[in-house]
């Protein structure tokens, strides 16, 4: 399976159920799309992430009812620095989609999706712990892997692999 160039044109990808639902709801929330290696990525405006997740979860045609994974990528030193990544799965239709929201390094905060999927609880705590991204509206945003008194966020790119010594 040789690699094919990614598709980034919204028009060509409109048939994917997740993108179709979002365009039907409010086309302005979709910032960019990419279809690469059989996976669809949609960049979402960061202030509507909770609504977008709720819309996709409750979509009638293809409900993306399962949050597989929630993580973050640090693009230090470029800005916007953080990308929060959501992997959704539709259990009835076996479709997958990846949502991304870009955050600035200076104000790394995004709305929590724990009200949409309770399973986001641990994932968001992990991202907060290891990247320092804040999730507003999270019921219990505290460190999960590192001790409470730990300084810094280990998975940030400006954090040395050996730690601070």
């Amino acid at each position, binding site marked *: 399976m040789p*690699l094919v160039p990614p598709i980034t044109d919204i028009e060509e990808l409109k048939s994917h159920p997740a993108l179709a639902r979002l365009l039907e709801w409010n086309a302005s929330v979709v910032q960019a799309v990419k279809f690469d*290696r059989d*996976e669809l*990525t949609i960049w979402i405006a960061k202030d509507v992430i909770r609504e977008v997740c709720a819309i996709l979860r409750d979509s009638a045609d293809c409900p993306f009812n399962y949050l*597989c*994974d929630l993580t973050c990528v640090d693009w230090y030193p470029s800005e916007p620095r953080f990308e929060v990544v959501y*992997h959704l799965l539709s259990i009835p239709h076996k479709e997958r989609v990846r949502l991304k929201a870009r955050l600035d390094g200076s104000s790394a905060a995004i709305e929590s999706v724990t009200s949409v999927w309770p399973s986001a609880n641990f994932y968001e705590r992990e991202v907060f712990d290891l990247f320092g991204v804040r999730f507003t509206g999270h019921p219990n945003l505290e*460190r999960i892997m590192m001790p*409470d008194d730990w300084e810094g966020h280990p*998975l940030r790119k400006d954090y040395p692999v050996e730690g601070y010594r």
Partner: protein
Amino acid sequence: MTQFPATVAESGRETPSGDRTLVLNMGPQHPSTHGVLRLVLEIDGETIVRLKPEIGFLHTGIEKTCEAKFYQQVVPLTDRIDYLCPLTNNLAYCLAVEKLLGLEIPPKAQWMRVLMNELTRINSHLVWLGTHAMDLGAMTVFLYCFREREDVLRFFEMVSGQRMMTSYFRIGGLALEPPLGFFEKVKKFADRFPGNVDEYEGLLTGNPIFMMRTKGIARLSAEDAIALGAGGPTLRGSGVDIDLRRDAPYTGYENFKFKVPVRTEGDVFARYLCRVEELRESIGMVQQALAGMPEGPIKADSPKVVLPDREKMKTQMEALIYHFKIITEGFTVPAGEVYQAIESPRGEMGYYIVSDGTAKPYRVHMRGPSYANLQTLAKMCEGGLIADVVAAIGSIDVILGDIDR
């Protein structure tokens, strides 16, 4: 990972009956928590009012370490995540990188991957069954299960030289050709194993004590299971029909026939039945893999990515150059990102890898199935009894290495 509460009396609350609740720490040093899991239980008498899992005691920063390694050097790290199914982790990682590279894997390597992956599932389920039954007071099952597990570990040792940290799957194929006599030995085991499963079931399935400890205990509805992100037998035990081997086949699973056991009760017993049934399905798949094992190479034809054979490396100049290049500089992977999910014994094991076009991954994230399953524990246990927490932990089959990473 939070500090322990200052005093027990400080953390209790008034109950409606006028008593005070008690906060009790279960773990991190408790045999039934299967590792270093700490549960903070708030109890009213014998009843659980609140349950809060505390994790992070085993956090080793594998995701950070991956970013400092070449792609091929990450494979041994993946063994250490979920230490009961190392090959499943190897497979998920290798498939993800192969997807990034657009690499074609020869059929024999694919079938060997299925064979070893199903043996890993059997290994993992046997440890689960033995320890789960022992938690509930059935000591003998543990000894039976570990007898068969020893056989499976010997197969791992035969192919890779290691019993647990195998690193047998490599990017582009397998590390080594399976040794002479390997398939005959696996065949003998596969013929015998269904009888062994009958033995375990004879000890447990109809056992009134076991049924009393498991039936109707720690119930989880399908809606809750989905909302809380449960996976694998925990999800299937609640009546959700999903199995990535069937729904999104990878590494040649589309060539295999198997049933996906689903139970609707959503209790500990349903999850037990799902897993035991999976043991039978797995051994069926091992039989199919043995019967249809194709001939041919075990590594992809991609000299810039796959290490050359030892013999070629010693006799051919070109192979030596490639060997030197891969070991010292790694290989570059085209920029992009993939999320590769596979069905591990515990649920969806996903690897999210971001490449920036260099020889080291920019970001590796492991979606561990135990991490998601652990979140269901509070829902299962609240309102139940302390003794049932032990049954519930066993039934979601958590591996702390997979949770803390």
